């Protein structure tokens, strides 16, 4: 028997999913997260899972892990003390931060900047210079560099060192040389150099990205080491730990620890890959995903069962150059607080959130502010009149009291206020969904919509109405979907370099040689982890733009295609996509900005577990009657147990489908059915004329 384990550590819960690699059978567990040392929660969960499933731990051969440890280090400001070395004259590159003040006219009046992640007092300069063509203007002055390094070392506080020189993306020799020298002085801390972490143009972004890498590196490395040791202790030497990266690929533990900047969106990437897993098995390869949690909602667009990849990642107010699944986040979640500014009398929802503590008023943990969750309680979408298995206890009166404050401020009824709050939250999520679809030239009607996360299934039907993306899909276990994603992805790495050459000037022989070099570089970490060369697959990418454009598009291609068609392949693909996005294309001026090789390991697919009819009819799946409010009126509805619904049963709305960690609302005029892989599919009932 061979099992793989998916583990997702979230802010509140750690989700685990055990999959039998032969049969596809699964077991899941949910345990509280342990923010002080997340590995404790992981190990608790493993013990729990082993106990309930009866699977012996030594049968688990792969552990695939999505982690927010790097993200949290950034968000809570608890990363390492980072020392920085820049080119002479560029010491304040982070201090100036491209001179940008957020906000509109007068935004500078209130803008308060967070402390630098590499403070100026720990920043030194090296006398060296590379030119914009990669040639050396001035050699590295080793003597003065050593003196500066020693002075920095003498401060005794640096826990990780970053080296970022101007134009090093074209010539990394000075950074390499500087690292060799630094290693002799800083013998026991990690050193990151920008030409390895992100060999791309733009000094501020490259410095910031490399500094973030240093900033989270000690903590991530420490965590991975400890977890690896604990897993080996329980499961034996053969267990392989991989970490999910922001781009949805898996990295080996050691490679993840070296470039932790690539893990910043590991959490959301797990959700997206999990959504892809279930949607594509159900036959839906083009989907919009929306993962609604307590404080925010992540949305993404999936085309041909692949997430779109973006070349930068945002965490809080930090933006770094590292590839990530193109997830857009809006500050609207179940805990988002509603309020009415006195002068404008407008209804605002978020971005402030009640979080887990004090939480929504209905949860009785001390919160009194009206939240989206409270509005859902008032409307009856989160039923309080029956005790449901596993659900948190809900105090409807507390929710009513909270939402009433909004109704009073606006001079409208309680129900209108509650419905207003939900609508505004939905609108914010719609805004994000439009960013990933309409604004990229995609029509949402060509997609299905996958709703998950704690609050996603509550809002999914309404979001379907707003986007017209049907069916609306609620995957099985929407609350542990990230763990599914973790468990079902492939090991992957990539290597890239800035090219900045006009397509017409490209020498194809040199291009092929450069691609081959990148291929070898991208394969390194996988080969080091003992994956056989025959197991590796490669794809190549080129980032293109019209010369002068800030925007660029990534074109994916295979080596054979390039050999057959030549570089005109790039131009054709680029013009087509540019036209889709912006309605025009130009005749010339195509410029290659970046080249990239992406290498991944083949994996055994997990067998499909086909859902069978459970032998019960709709009536037997019923838990009780209830009522909820929608579109200005109260509707009689029925609550069903999802665990008893199988293929062949259709649930007519208005209804609520309940399961351990989630509640799905089916609105009047809509119905839900279960497909063969366990997805709940919501569609409109033909001939129904309900509108939002």
């Amino acid at each position, binding site marked *: 028997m061979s099992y793989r384990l998916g583990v997702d550590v979230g802010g509140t819960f750690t989700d685990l999913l055990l999959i039998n690699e032969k049969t596809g059978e699964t077991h899941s567990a949910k345990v509280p997260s342990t923010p002080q040392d997340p590995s404790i929660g992981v190990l608790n969960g493993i013990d729990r899972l082993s106990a309930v499933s009866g699977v012996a731990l030594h049968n688990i051969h792969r552990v695939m892990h999505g982690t927010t440890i790097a993200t949290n280090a950034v968000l809570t400001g608890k990363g390492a003390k980072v020392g920085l070395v820049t080119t002479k*004259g*560029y*010491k*304040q*590159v982070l*201090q*100036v931060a*491209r*001179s*940008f*003040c957020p*906000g*509109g*006219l*007068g935004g*500078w*009046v*209130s*803008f*308060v*900047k967070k402390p630098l992640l590499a403070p*100026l*007092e720990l920043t030194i300069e090296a006398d060296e210079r590379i*030119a*914009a063509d990669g040639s050396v*203007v001035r050699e590295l002055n080793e003597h003065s560099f050593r003196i500066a390094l020693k002075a920095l070392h003498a401060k005794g506080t640096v826990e990780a060192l970053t080296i970022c020189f*101007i*134009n090093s*993306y074209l010539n990394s020799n000075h950074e390499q040389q500087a690292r060799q020298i630094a290693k002799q002085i800083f013998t026991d801390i990690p050193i990151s150099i920008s030409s390895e972490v992100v060999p791309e*143009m*733009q*000094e*501020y*972004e490259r410095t910031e990205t490399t500094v973030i890498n240093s900033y989270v590196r000690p903590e991530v490395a420490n965590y991975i080491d400890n977890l690896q040791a604990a897993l080996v202790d329980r499961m034996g030497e053969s267990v392989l730990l991989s970490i999910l990266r922001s781009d949805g690929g898996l990295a080996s533990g050691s490679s993840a620890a070296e470039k932790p900047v690539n893990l910043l969106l590991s959490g959301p990437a797990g959700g997206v890959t999990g959504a892809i897993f279930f949607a594509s098995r159900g036959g839906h390869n083009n989907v919009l995903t929306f993962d609604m949690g307590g404080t925010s909602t992540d949305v993404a667009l999936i085309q041909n069962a692949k997430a779109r990849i973006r070349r930068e990642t945002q965490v809080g107010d930090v933006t770094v150059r590292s590839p990530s699944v193109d997830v857009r986040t809006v500050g609207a979640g179940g805990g988002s607080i509603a309020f009415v*500014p*006195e*002068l*404008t*009398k*407008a*209804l*605002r929802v978020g971005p402030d959130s009640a979080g887990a503590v004090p939480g929504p008023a209905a949860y009785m943990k001390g919160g009194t502010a009206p939240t989206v969750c409270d509005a859902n309680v008032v409307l009856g979408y989160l039923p309080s009149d029956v005790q449901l298995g596993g659900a948190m206890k809900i105090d409807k009166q507390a929710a009513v009291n909270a939402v009433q404050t909004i109704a009073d401020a606006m001079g*409208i009824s309680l129900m209108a206020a509650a*419905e*207003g709050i939900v*609508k*505004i939250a939905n*609108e914010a999520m719609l*805004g994000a969904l*439009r960013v990933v679809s309409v*604004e990229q030239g995609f029509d949402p009607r060509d997609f299905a919509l996958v709703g998950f996360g704690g609050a996603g299934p509550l809002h999914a039907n309404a979001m379907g109405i707003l986007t017209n993306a049907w069916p609306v899909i609620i995957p099985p276990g929407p609350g542990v979907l990230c763990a599914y994603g973790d468990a079902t992805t492939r090991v992957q790495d990539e290597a890239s370099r800035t090219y900045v050459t006009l397509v017409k000037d490209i020498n194809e022989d040199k291009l092929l040689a450069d691609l081959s070099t990148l291929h070898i570089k991208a394969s390194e970490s996988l080969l080091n982890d003992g994956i056989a060369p025959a197991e590796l697959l490669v794809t190549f990418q080129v980032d293109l733009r*019209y010369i*002068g*454009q*800030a*925007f660029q598009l990534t074109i994916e291609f295979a080596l054979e295609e390039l050999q057959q068609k030549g570089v005109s392949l790039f131009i054709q693909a680029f013009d087509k996509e540019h036209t889709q*996005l*912006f309605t*025009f294309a*130009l005749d010339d001026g195509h410029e290659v900005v970046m080249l990239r090789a992406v290498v991944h390991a083949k994996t055994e697919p997990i067998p499909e577990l086909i859902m069978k009819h459970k032998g019960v009819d709709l009536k037997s799946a019923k838990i009780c009657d209830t009522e909820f409010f929608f579109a200005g009126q109260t509707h009689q509805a029925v609550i069903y147990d999802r665990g008893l619904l199988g293929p062949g049963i259709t649930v007519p709305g208005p209804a609520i489908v309940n399961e351990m960690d989630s509640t799905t609302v089916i609105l009047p005029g809509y119905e839900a059915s279960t497909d063969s892989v366990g997805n709940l599919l919501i569609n409109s009932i033909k001939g129904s004329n309900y509108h939002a």
Partner: protein
Amino acid sequence: MLSKLIETNKAPFNKVDVDPVNVDIIENALSNAREEMDAVLFRTAMSPGIREQGDCFPIIANRDGKMVVGQFGSFIKGFLDAYTGQIEEGDIILTNDPYLCNAAVSHLPDWIVLVPIFKDGRHLAWSAMFGHMSDNGGMVPGSIPIKAETVFQEGIQIPPTKLYKKGVLQHEILELILRNVRTPQWNRFDLNALIASCRTAAKRCVELAERFGDDVFNSTMDIILERNLIAMTHIIKMIVPESPRVFEDYICDDGMGMGPYKLKCTMWREGDKAFFDFDGTDPQAQSSINFYLNEELFKMFFGSFTINMIDPQIVFNDGFYELVEVRVPEGSILKPKYPAALSGRTHALGRVFDILGGLLGQGAPEAMNAAGFSDSPHLFYSGYDDNNEWFQLFQIGFGGIPGRPVGDGLDGHSLWPGFTNVPNEFIEAYFPLRINTYETIADSGGAGLHRGGNGLCVAYEFLNNGKIAIHDDRWLTYPWGVNGGKPGLRSSKLLIRKDGSQEYLAAKCDDIVVKKGDVLYFNTWGGGGWGDPLKRNPELVLTDVNRELVTIAGALEYGVVIANNAVDSDKTAALRHKISTERPEIQLFERGGTIEEIKARCLQETHLEPPKTPVFHAAGA
């Protein structure tokens, strides 16, 4: 209104009641559409000025041309008043002429695209976007000639012109225009981008009207405008006093030897209405530093400065315009007479913000900011490179954000929304120069309880022979401090030739020949300080010293004595006591002396001759 909109569908819009939640939803959606306009522009524009620096401004307006969402307020009404033609579905209008659109744009390099949005044959709304073009022809590369005496020297003037007629591009007009600029390819592409951006907004408006109904959409725009009116009514009563309040500030010189020029504004309130009267402002200048101030634009400056306090999420718009009256004297530097030159208006435009801050701040000193980086200094560098190809660089400089109630000013930042620097590696890759230094200037921020932000020192090493032009200000007058804070350090430009000789350049100059290997130190000014520097925590001063943002000598301005990397408490206490007993009483504004005193020290301190007091002739004479 002289111009006429031709609608094929004459059905009137009905005013309808709108569910308040739908108002909020439409408000959000319009905000998103405005963001999307920027996004489309940045991704498709080509010149570094627009794509990297974000020098552009979007608007979505209602049928009447009132800005419902946007940045700098609507010019559409002014444009419509001045335009005499008919406007039909599919038309796209282009202009850059300040004198023919009531200064909707204030100099020729800003090109505006205006799109009437139609749905089912009815005029639904407007979208507009303007962007700063890299070149507009005229006397000098970049088209901001300092010594221009009339607008004819500033390049091509495009009166409101249909670039598209009923959806058809007027090729010949476009080619005529582009033939007159030095960077036709950039302008062509940027213009494309402006149009794409406006069309995106048009699409979103039509979609919203489809979703909620035309009447609901139309009525909601009025409601969103009304919200601003209500909010601003309260704000004006709160912060604008009935008794008049006056503030003056200066433009240091006109680039032709005269200065400083005075800007003066008086503010008061009568009932609900606020008045801003620029009477006492100097007459128009002989050169291009005139700034044709659109009254509506000034209202927008005023509103956006104040409304954030009440509801930062509000969609800010024109709705309150009737509550503000702005009076600008004809023939003054803020309302020059045609055909006065006005391309170098950036200094006066920025300085208006300092005036606003000074006016509003007198009533609430604790809430006032010091003088900030109220400008967008320019550097132009152009010539032929080694491949004999024309290059033309336009760079905007950044400087010190002032000390603020909320804390220290930021070092080397922008006061303009959305502006960012162009990455140096990008510039080096595409232009023949190398940037040897890019760091803030220690001690340039005014000392204060909250320190002013430092100015920025950028050292450009030119790698080709060519010409440069510089536009900067505050080299003579100081960025003032408030509430006891000190003024910031002024700007300076030092050119060090390859042979080692050096030359201080005027703040405003063009046609300066540079040779390969020459290095220009472009130093911008620091922000003024806020509050008494003697009250700043000495440990914070030490931290700034450790960060090399303040020097050990600079720390003395705070009365802080630093020795051996630590604050010497005894000496600090003694010095602070000495300074506080010897200094004159703290004034609300610290300007670093009178104009006469500043001029007297000018040559010694700045290495430049002081400008002569302006002599004015009757405008247009």
